[in-house]
Every structure is written in structure tokens, then in C-alpha cells.
């Protein structure tokens, strides 16, 4: 799949933003006034910037309002609705904390629940797609997305020790997901024979593509560059997402510069991991145009 920068920015930043909301809704850190403003500002900035970035890959954003209409069938529609519901639920909670110095725990907990559901809907947008075997892994992909959000949120909430352990956990789960994806693709029932239905007559090979030029389907769904360096990029992502931040958080004193260093490493690592999430993912339509 084509790793569009807008979608990578969206899933990385929004994941962190909603992850931070999960902790803020539970009262961690338990702050009011100016510090509360700073924390809610970060959470809103990350999630809103991410959501705005996600609209950049739309061909026709003027119809965006309709995207809230199909919650009965569409995970993308559900995601849009839940993101807005979560952001609006946290607004009075944040106002109470910042300006009135009061905490409404029920509202916060409800917001946390909505943030968890938002991240789940994002993950299901990918996990539902039978056409992309590496994404079509339930419940592994949703659990991975949730754990990323919770771990990243803990990091931003300043819970250095908890974040360290959560980040170790998400790194292990990411490696498991990579391996599960490799296995799933290697044992896939789809090949050039089932794609064309001609497999029962013999070995199928593409003789001529349907087009000499580029096409939308090839550009969007048959991205080959990422697969070339996949193993090196996985190693780099593993170090940046988890190994380095976890070492920093668990071994060094939890001061602000230390946490910021861990945040920087983690965010760059997650972005690299999300790039791989797209670039590595094979779409079954590639069977129709695969040479050899």
C-alpha cells in the first residue's frame, strides 16, 4: 500500500493524542489550572492536527460532512463520529479542570472510554480489509493500536516508569505482529491462479499488463519500495519505538529532558513503524499484475 504522509501523520499523532486523553480522563496527571491547560493543549493539538492531516489525502474534501452518516456499516464513518464525540466530551472536562479547578471524574472516565473506542475504530478500518492480509488480523491489529495509544499516552502524561514498561510491551507486540503478518502472507490462499481463476488449467504468468503507463491501482496498492528494506527498517523502528525509550525511562531519573528525549525517539519510531505498516502491506490485487 502507498504510504501517504498524511495518513502516517494522522495515525501517529492522533494515536498519541487520544492515548494522552485516555490518561487525562482517568486523572493522570491530576492537575488543574495552567498545567492542566498545557496537557489538554498537547492532547487536543496532537489529535486535531492528526485529524486535519487525514483530510489532506481526500480527493474531494468538500463532501466531508457526509462522512458522519454511515456509522451502521463503515468503520471510517464510525471513526469520524467517535473522534468528534471524544473531543467534545473532553471539552467541558478540560474547562472544569483549567478554569474552575474542579474534576468531574464521571465525565473524564466517559471520555477515556470514548478515546479507547476511537482508537479501536481506527484500527478496524485496517483490520477489516480482507484484501490486505497483513492488516486483516483481528484482534491483533486493534490490540496493537490500543497499546500504542496507551503507551504513548503514558509517556506524554509523564508516567515515566509505567510508560517504560508499556513501551517494552508494545515493542514486543509489534515484533509479534510483524511475524504474524509474514506468516499470514506466506500461507495466503490467494495466488495468480485463484486471482484469474485460471490456476486449474496450469501455471499462470502475466504476459502483458493492461496498461503501459502508471495507474491509480498500481500507484496506490502495489507499492514495492518499502518491502526491499523491510528488515532493516523493522530493526530501526524497534530501537526507536521501544528499546531506546524504555532504557531511558527505566534507567534514568524521570526529569523533563529525559522524558522529552524518550518522547522524541518514540514518536520518530512510531512514524517509521507506521510507514512500514503501509509500505509492507501487500494488496491481493497485486496478483493480477505480478511479473514472473
Amino acid at each position: 500500500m502507498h504510504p501517504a504522509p498524511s495518513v502516517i501523520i494522522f495515525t501517529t499523532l492522533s494515536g498519541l493524542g487520544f492515548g494522552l486523553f485516555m490518561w487525562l480522563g482517568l486523572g493522570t496527571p491530576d492537575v488543574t489550572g495552567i498545567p492542566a491547560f498545557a496537557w489538554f493543549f498537547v492532547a487536543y493539538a496532537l489529535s486535531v492536527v492528526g485529524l486535519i492531516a487525514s483530510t489532506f489525502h481526500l480527493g474531494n474534501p468538500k463532501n466531508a460532512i457526509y462522512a458522519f452518516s454511515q456509522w451502521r456499516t463503515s468503520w471510517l464513518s464510525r471513526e469520524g463520529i467517535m473522534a468528534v464525540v471524544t473531543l467534545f466530551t473532553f471539552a467541558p472536562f478540560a474547562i472544569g479542570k483549567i478554569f474552575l479547578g474542579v474534576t468531574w471524574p464521571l465525565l473524564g472516565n466517559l471520555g477515556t472510554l470514548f478515546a479507547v473506542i476511537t482508537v479501536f475504530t481506527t484500527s478496524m478500518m485496517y483490520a477489516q480489509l480482507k484484501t490486505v492480509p497483513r492488516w486483516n488480523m483481528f484482534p491483533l491489529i486493534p490490540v496493537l493500536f490500543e497499546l500504542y495509544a496507551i503507551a504513548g499516552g503514558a509517556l506524554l502524561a509523564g508516567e515515566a516508569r509505567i510508560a517504560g514498561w508499556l513501551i517494552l510491551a508494545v515493542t514486543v507486540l509489534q515484533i509479534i505482529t510483524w511475524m504474524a503478518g509474514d506468516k499470514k502472507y506466506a500461507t495466503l490462499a490467494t495466488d495468480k491462479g485463484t486471482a484469474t481463476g485460471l490456476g486449474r488449467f496450469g501455471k499462470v504468468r502475466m504476459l502483458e499488463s493492461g496498461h503501459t503507463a502508471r495507474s491509480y491501482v498500481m500507484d496506490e496498492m502495489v507499492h514495492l519500495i518499502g518491502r526491499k528494506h523491510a528488515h532493516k527498517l523493522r530493526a530501526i523502528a524497534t530501537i526507536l519505538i521501544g528499546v531506546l525509550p524504555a532504557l531511558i525511562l527505566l534507567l534514568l531519573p524521570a526529569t523533563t529532558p529525559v522524558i522529552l528525549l524518550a518522547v522524541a525517539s518514540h514518536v520518530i519510531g512510531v512514524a517509521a513503524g507506521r510507514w512500514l505498516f503501509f509500505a509492507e502491506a501487500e494488496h491481493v490485487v497485486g496478483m493480477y499484475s505480478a511479473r514472473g
Partner: protein
Amino acid sequence: MTALPKTTRKKLGLVIDLDTCVGCHGCVTACKGWNTQNYGAPLSDIDPYGADPSGTFLNRVFSYEVTPEGGGAAQTVHFPRSCLHCEDAPCVTVCPTGASYKRSEDGIVLVNEDRCIGCGLCAWACPYGARELDQLAGVMKKCTLCVDRIYNENLPEEDRLPACVRTCPAGARHFGDLGDPDSDVSKLVASRETVDLMPEQGTRPVNTYLAPRPRDRMGRDAAELKPVATEAKGFLGWLDKALEKL
């Protein structure tokens, strides 16, 4: 609404004969022509006369070579690929706006361009590469079964067919109601072997591909060929003998 209809009154679709298709791309050109000048946003081309041309097509003809297991002559199969108007169309249910829908009256899968946001998720959900996002209009384009031809009473009756079917010089493309067992297309399908495209995806396509018939069985056919003459007779016989004597 992006919920799929439980049943459709008709199942309009194409029957494509892989045995007959000669791979001329006439259907591709007719489709592009009709669908650029009629319903919906035109199928644009980007840099059409330049170094890196690309464009939107609703139908593309690939060619495959099938080599029988255990040897034998390879067979070329020309393979037109377009929307299969699936009964369990995954492209419809993923649509966040309701732009993508399947009609309950005839089963055609369409895009309402006035609602489409061009997110591309339907193209991701389609295993057949049947949907292309038009790069100029920013909306998703797909085969409409020429919905603006088949019911169009301003056209002569013989033209009320999808443009690809109307133009096919080989008679490899057929159009009709595959839900009606007495229709011509259903009878054609019943009389022939068919191939399923990625049945493991569970999409239940309406369009049906007729399998290529086996041919060019070299081992058997070659044995049947016997020499028609071993000795030259008549003028050639005289010439042969005369040249021998020289």
C-alpha cells in the same frame, strides 16, 4: 445507504468469454469514450502526450499465459478486468459517506459523485482493482454497466447495451440479467465452464467469466499428422530425377 440490499430484483452483469476475447482493447476504448462524455465526471488523463502519461479507466485488458502442469503448449488468455458488481460488495459497506451503493432494483454498484469524498477506502476494499480515483475530479470512478445507455430510450434499442458489449468485435462480451435463469446470459453461462476470480474473498461476483477451452494439444495433434506424399510425382518427379542425373 451503504448497507447492501438483501436481494436485488435483477442481477445485471457482464458475461466475458475468455475463450473468444482477442485482446484488442476495443472495449477499453469504447468504455473510456462513453464514460468520458456522459454520466458523471469525465475519465481524465494526466500528461497524456508527455513522458509520464496516466489516466482513469474503468476496464483494462490484461493478458496471461497459462502453461499446463506437466508440459504442453502454453495458452494465451486475454483477460478484461472491470467491476464485477459483487453481491457481497466490500467496496460498498466501507464507504463512510453513502456515496458507494448497490441498487436493489438491478444490482448495479454505483458511486454518487455528489457525496464521494475521494478517500479511496472502497478501492482498498476491492480485491479486483476495479475502482480508480480520478486524479482531476478527485472522485471514485467505476464501471456503471453504462447505466445511462441500458435504460436510455433516446437510443435505438440495439444500442441499449454497455458500450464495451456493443463494441466488442469478437462477440466475447455479453450483457443481461444473471438472476433470471431463462435469460440468454444465464443459458450461456449454464452451457459453459466458468472461472471464479478470488472466490476466497467471498465477494460473490455477478459478472461471470467463461473459461478458455483447451487447445493446441501438441502431443496428440502432431501424431495425427501423417505425411501426404513420400515420393514426388508428375513434373516435380521429372525435375527431381533430372536433377539427380546431373
